[in-house]
Each structure stands twice: as structure tokens, then as C-alpha cells.
């Protein structure tokens, strides 16, 4: 027996995940999807993936500044969700739980590769942004985020991107409430200052 199962075993398990989606699932409430997932319905996990793929990736991307790293982290986060779904008590919402996993995975990565300034923050956003102004804003925002410390970036993104409450941010990052308050305030002020400096630098450059 292969120590972790053969490729054929993996393919067989994968086939179950490709089973046709029940038509009601995409419209079902989150709690119902979670229940179905816990009951072992592979299509329910696919539904969770469809619902939360984009926000998880966006958070990871803004934390790490690299689309490739963001996908790696988001993938790992979804596997962890699958592994520990039985332990999910539902005290927080599923998205809060997922954001917590993503944020902590990102912080772990950033700690192991400091100092970092992601090069991809300078790449233009993909897809059709509405206007040149929007593209400029998106690029600038990425550059500013990349210049914040990972700790400040994490609280700011969990609040702004994930819409987590202060208590939820504290739980996610294991921080006292007072630290969440002060870090968020510092992060916003730092963001604004770097934003202004970057704008001035752009206007000053030919």
C-alpha cells in the first residue's frame, strides 16, 4: 500500500467532488450548505468554494501582494476548512472563520520571508477596470498596502475587506481589544500618510 494512497485513490476521491451540483444548493442559506458539507456532500464543499473563493483570495492577495502566493494560501485555507469543519462551532460566521485562517496563514508566510515588498503590487489589475483612474487607484492602493507592516495590514484588511468586528479581529489574530483599536487607528493613519506621499511623488514625477 502506498504510504498516503495511490494516485488512483486520489482520482476516485476527486470524482466524488465532481458529482453534479444540486440545484437548490447555490440558493441555500449558509447554515444549510455547512450542514450538507458536514454530512459529507462533496457538492456542498464546492458551493462553499464558489461562495468564498473570491473574498479569500482578495484578502490573501492584499496581504501578500502576489497572486500566486495568494492562491497557494487560499488553497491551503480551504483544505484546512475541510479538515476542521467538524470542529467549527458556528460561534462566528463561516466567513469570519475563513478570514481568520487566511490571515494567519498569510502572517506566517510574511514572517518567514521578511522584509518584503511584493513586486506584483506594481502589476496592472487584470480584467476590464472601468477607467484609467480606477487602475491608478488600484495600483496605488496595492503599493500603499505593501508598505504597511504585516500586523497593521492584517487588522486593516480584516476590517475593510472582511468586515470583521473588533472582537472578531481580536479573536482571529489573538490580540486584546485595545491592541485591535490602536492598530486599526495606526493603520488608517499610516495608510493615509503613505497614500498622500505616493500621490505627491506621482504628481512630481514627469
Amino acid at each position: 500500500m502506498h504510504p498516503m494512497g495511490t494516485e488512483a485513490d486520489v482520482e476516485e476521491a476527486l470524482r466524488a467532488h465532481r458529482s453534479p451540483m444540486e440545484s437548490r444548493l447555490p440558493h441555500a442559506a449558509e447554515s444549510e450548505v455547512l450542514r450538507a458539507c458536514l454530512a459529507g456532500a462533496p457538492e456542498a464543499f464546492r458551493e462553499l468554494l464558489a461562495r468564498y473563493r473570491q473574498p479569500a483570495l482578495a484578502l490573501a492577495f492584499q496581504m501578500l501582494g502576489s497572486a500566486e502566493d495568494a492562491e497557494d494560501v487560499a488553497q491551503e485555507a480551504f483544505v484546512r476548512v475541510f479538515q476542521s469543519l467538524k470542529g467549527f462551532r458556528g460561534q462566528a460566521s463561516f466567513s469570519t472563520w475563513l478570514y481568520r485562517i487566511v490571515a494567519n496563514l498569510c502572517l506566517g508566510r510574511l514572517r518567514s520571508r521578511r522584509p518584503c515588498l511584493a513586486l506584483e503590487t506594481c502589476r496592472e489589475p487584470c480584467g476590464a477596470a472601468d477607467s484609467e483612474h480606477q487602475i491608478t487607484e488600484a495600483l496605488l492602493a496595492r503599493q500603499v498596502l505593501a508598505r504597511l507592516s504585516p500586523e497593521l495590514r492584517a487588522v486593516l484588511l480584516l476590517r475593510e475587506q472582511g468586515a470583521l468586528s473588533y472582537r472578531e479581529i481580536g479573536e482571529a489574530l489573538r490580540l486584546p481589544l485595545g491592541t485591535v483599536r490602536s492598530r486599526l487607528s495606526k493603520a488608517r493613519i499610516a495608510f493615509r500618510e503613505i497614500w498622500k506621499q505616493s500621490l505627491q511623488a506621482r504628481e512630481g514625477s514627469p
Partner: protein
Amino acid sequence: MTCKLYQTELSEYLDGELPAARVARLEAHLRVCPHCQGELQELSGISGYIRAASLELRVSQDFDRRVLRAVATYQVAARVLRRRRSLLRPLVVAGIIFLGLLGALQRLLLSRPPVLPLRAPQAAAAAAAPAAPAPMGADREDR
């Protein structure tokens, strides 16, 4: 209180996390302080910039497939591990029982009194009293 001290409260105010008593005090200050009004406006604009940062983030086409493959790999590995455990469990139980029996046997043997080597009763008595006086009759014969 100076504007600098209010500045830390502006962030909590924007998030709706400032306690009610302090909200009233801050709003009273904001009504009379154009500087803090400007600060509030600038800080409130940050949300929009951050949302813009992930605008049109493109997901690889094979992202879902990769996640599902990773999940399937985990499932298979977990299944193999469970199967191994279920095979090992009887062996472990048998081993524990064997060791338990071995321990019990050892205790039993150690708790018994030591077994002395068997000797004839007279020889043993002689060995136990080496300096016994000579019988009276023997003295008389010597004389």
C-alpha cells in the same frame, strides 16, 4: 482634550465601535473642529481605496480543481491512516494484555517467600549449633 487625542477615536467612530458616551463627545468636537472633520473624511475614504486594490483580481482557471485535488489527497491520506490504525488496534490491544499478564506473573513470583534448599533435619541442627558442650559420658571415658 486635543485633536490628537480625538484622532485615535475617529477610527473607532468610523467602524461604529466607539462607546456611546464617547460618540457624543466626539460628535460635539467634530461640530466645532474643521481639522478633525477633514481627518474623518480622509480616513473614511480609505475603505474605497482598499476595495479598489483587489478590483478584478483574476482567479486561475484551475484554482477550484487544485483545491479539490488537495482535499481529495487529504481524504485519501486520512483514509489510509484510519485503515492502518484499525489494523494496528488489535495488535496494540493484544500487546497491552500480554504485558499486563507478564507484569501480573512477575508480581506473583516476587510475592512468594523464598524457597530454602532442602537439607536433612539433623544436619541442619548441627550446622546451626557448632559449639555445643560434649556429653557427660564422654568425659568419664576419657578419665
